[in-house]
């Protein structure tokens, strides 16, 4: 099933819904597409909805850290929401929660960023 992404831009924030599995293979193209869009729409914040992300490993975490390094130069933020158990364990283990904002629902994420 690989990885499908649904993207929506709203007030300088990019909302990304991830469906499938995030690994070295599936992040390759996704990364390029993200960087292109962030540039095109002058994106400050990224919101990842992980409800339907069934798998992530350290390659996926690497992509998130890379985007964090990008948005922090603009004082932007990475918000991650709707983590299921499998994904949550890797996110916690990797320490990602220290540099990203974790929210239960996408609604919470929107409120947090003031784009509700």
């Amino acid at each position, binding site marked *: 099933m690989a990885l499908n992404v649904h993207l929506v831009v709203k007030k300088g924030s990019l909302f990304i819904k991830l469906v499938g599995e995030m690994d070295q293979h599936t992040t390759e193209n996704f990364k390029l597409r993200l960087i292109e869009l962030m540039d095109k729409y002058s994106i400050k914040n990224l919101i990842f909805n992980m409800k339907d992300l069934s*798998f992530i490993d350290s390659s996926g*975490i690497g992509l998130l850290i890379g985007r964090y390094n990008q948005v922090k130069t603009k004082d932007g933020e990475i918000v991650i929401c709707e983590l299921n*158990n499998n994904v949550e364990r890797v996110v916690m283990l990797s320490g990602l929660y220290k540099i990203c904002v974790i929210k239960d629902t996408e609604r919470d994420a929107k409120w947090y960023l003031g784009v509700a």
Partner: protein
Amino acid sequence: MNKMEVFFSSRTENIIFIRAAVVSFLLNLDLEVAILNEIKTVVSEAVTNSIVHGYESDPLNVINVKCSYDKEEIMLEVIDQGIGINDVKQAKRPMFTTKKNEERSGLGFTIMEAFSDELLVESIVGEGTTIKCIKKI
């Protein structure tokens, strides 16, 4: 005892294949979803390392994954004949990576160790790397 062994081309599109193959092999065991996901993650990390580090993304190489189980434990092995690791202790350190500019997180070993009951790394520079993971059941 039940066992299987897979050899496959070192291409990134085979990472999802080998995860699925190992999971299908273990389905008879009726493991908890969390444990199955841990094993799936260990396979993914080790195989990704063989592809991107061991074989430096040259797809003409072959990776070997072995998996077996008995009543007590699951044994998983990922073997490559790649460049090998110079300093295993350093490699295992969280955030250590030799491919920083490719956005690697350096967290592969950290995750593999957290998700295994035992993790053994054997590596010889110029000869290759073997990762053994033991998981009690």
